[in-house]
């Protein structure tokens, strides 16, 4: 287990290098000059040149990349071009906000998705099944901003139960989490359904019934845990996608998260912020997938990790 963890951690290195390298090249490839942006539009050529020098933007690209990596290893991700703050500080609190948001949303997706998927699977081809699956497609096709604003209109304004926006209090969490979790719930519902349908015809389910196990336990104890295995992969991917996809939700609910930071920073060509955030997100992504693999093993001891 320890060795496996170590191995996985080492495997993340090429991924991190790959991600940062691509981000780095991409940022330099697209039009938009951070020095110009920082020095201001009315700045003279010399002033821009000076800024470029100070930001190290005149160094050859490989040197710039090496500097970035070198500093990153020491935990220094540089300073924001826009406001000069250390990238680590800028990312710091926002990172946790986004992680928290994504985490609760994932929990919600899992909960709703599993429930819906199980009900659908156990009543295959019934009207309930149809309803749930069509509903899931709605959930999938609904843009985040649409859902978010509708929720605000109803829950915050019409019936005034929950705050419109903000972050921190448990009430403030509810709407954004629903908004962000819905699409995931839809996907998980579909996955769970097909996975359950497969499991439910396995021999060991028959064994359980032959033992006289109650139907409810057959479903929730014997079938579900096996059906979860493919679902977990989706959850992992989903969590990754949520981190990136949180931008709209963060915007609608005025949540100060990493998603917004990255998108803004890209718009402002704030190289250090973009590189730093992507690095952190990639790390998290790899970590989540690692956890997914671990939970595979937890769910099914048969899967050998090495």
């Amino acid at each position, binding site marked *: 287990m320890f060795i496996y963890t170590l191995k996985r951690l080492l495997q993340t290195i090429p*991924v991190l290098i790959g991600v940062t390298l691509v981000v780095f090249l991409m940022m330099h490839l697209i039009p938009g000059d951070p020095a110009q942006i920082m020095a201001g539009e009315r700045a003279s050529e010399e002033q821009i040149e000076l800024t470029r020098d100070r930001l190290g933007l005149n160094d050859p690209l490989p040197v710039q990349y090496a500097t970035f990596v070198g500093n990153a290893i020491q935990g220094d991700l540089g300073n924001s071009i826009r406001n000069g703050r250390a990238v680590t500080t800028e990312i710091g609190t926002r990172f946790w906000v986004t992680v928290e948001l994504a985490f609760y949303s994932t929990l919600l997706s899992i909960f709703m998705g599993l429930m819906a998927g199980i009900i659908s699977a156990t009543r295959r081809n019934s009207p309930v099944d149809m309803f749930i699956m069509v509903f899931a497609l709605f959930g999938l096709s609904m843009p985040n901003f649409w859902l978010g604003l509708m929720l605000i209109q109803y829950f915050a304004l019409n019936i005034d139960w929950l705050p419109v926006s903000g972050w921190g209090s448990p009430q403030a969490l509810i709407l954004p989490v629903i908004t962000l979790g819905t699409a995931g719930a839809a996907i998980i519902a579909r996955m769970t359904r097909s996975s359950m349908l497969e499991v439910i015809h396995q021999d060991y389910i028959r064994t359980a019934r032959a033992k006289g196990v109650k139907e409810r336990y057959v479903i929730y104890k014997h079938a579900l845990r096996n059906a979860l295995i493919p679902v977990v992969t989706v959850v992992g991917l989903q969590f990754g996608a949520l981190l990136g996809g949180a931008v709209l939700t963060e915007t609608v609910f005025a949540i100060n998260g990493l998603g917004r930071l*990255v998108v803004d920073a890209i718009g402002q060509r704030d190289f250090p912020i973009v590189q730093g955030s992507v690095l952190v997100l990639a790390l998290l992504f790899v970590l989540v997938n690692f956890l997914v693999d671990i939970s595979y093993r937890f769910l099914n001891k048969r899967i050998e990790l090495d």
Partner: protein
Amino acid sequence: MSETTANVSKEEKKRINPQIESLKNVWRKLKTNYLAMAGGILIILFIITAIVGPWLTTLDPNMPNVQARLQGPSSEFWFGTDHHGRDIFTRIVHGMSITLYIGFFSVAIGMVLGVVLGIVAGYYGRRIDAVIMRIMDVLLAFPGILLALGIVAVLGGSINNVIIAISIFSIPVFARIVRGSTLSVRKLEYVDAVRALGASDFRIIFLHILPNILSPIIVQATLHIATAVLTATGLSFLGLGAQPPTPEWGAMLASGRNYMWDHPHIALFPGLAIVLVVLAFNLFGDGVRDTLDPKIKS
């Protein structure tokens, strides 16, 4: 005499093209699946609408009409009008082709590439697998917006380029799923059997493994159409994709954002249209999957 020749040639045809026979089989099975047929008919209707719809509508989808702004659904404007006073129904009909085009091709391309990479990774395993899957990880961990910007910078912002962008996002999703399935299919004896016959890897991969892992691919592809259409919208602000005033549904949906509360119909109808398309593809895809599945006998 002529009768016998006719018979022979019929037989002959059958022999020459067993694929057609098998397609017919598929069709026969599909016909009995009502949901799939419903999905299929919807898709055909969409396609017909996409082709002839624009000829049938009387209003101009793009010409603003300041007098008719923001009207709710009525007998004149079935789905109401948008902030420029354009008829939403007309725009949805005109946007059908472009939305289908983006949804279909971006998924198709991403699927093809993802499937190839996934199969290759799963089939060869070891180094190749590790390299491909790490690249997929990079793609997954990479902010899509940046990639989209890169594409605009290098290739420009046409509709075809948004398809490229979405395809690239889709690759790792398909690759992961396909790799998993490949791993299980590759162990089956019939793969060894054709290998023992001396079949090349290419033949094994595309003629023997691929047809047997279609089911998860189809499910993912049909679900992904929704994601693709919505992503296309998300990218249009970067200048990637259909440019205003093209009545692309995602863009219409997004333009309703500012009017969500007081004039929700602007966002609602394009949204429903997207759901309907996704639903149709899902129903049809599920049916096709069931049909292709040898375990479900007709």
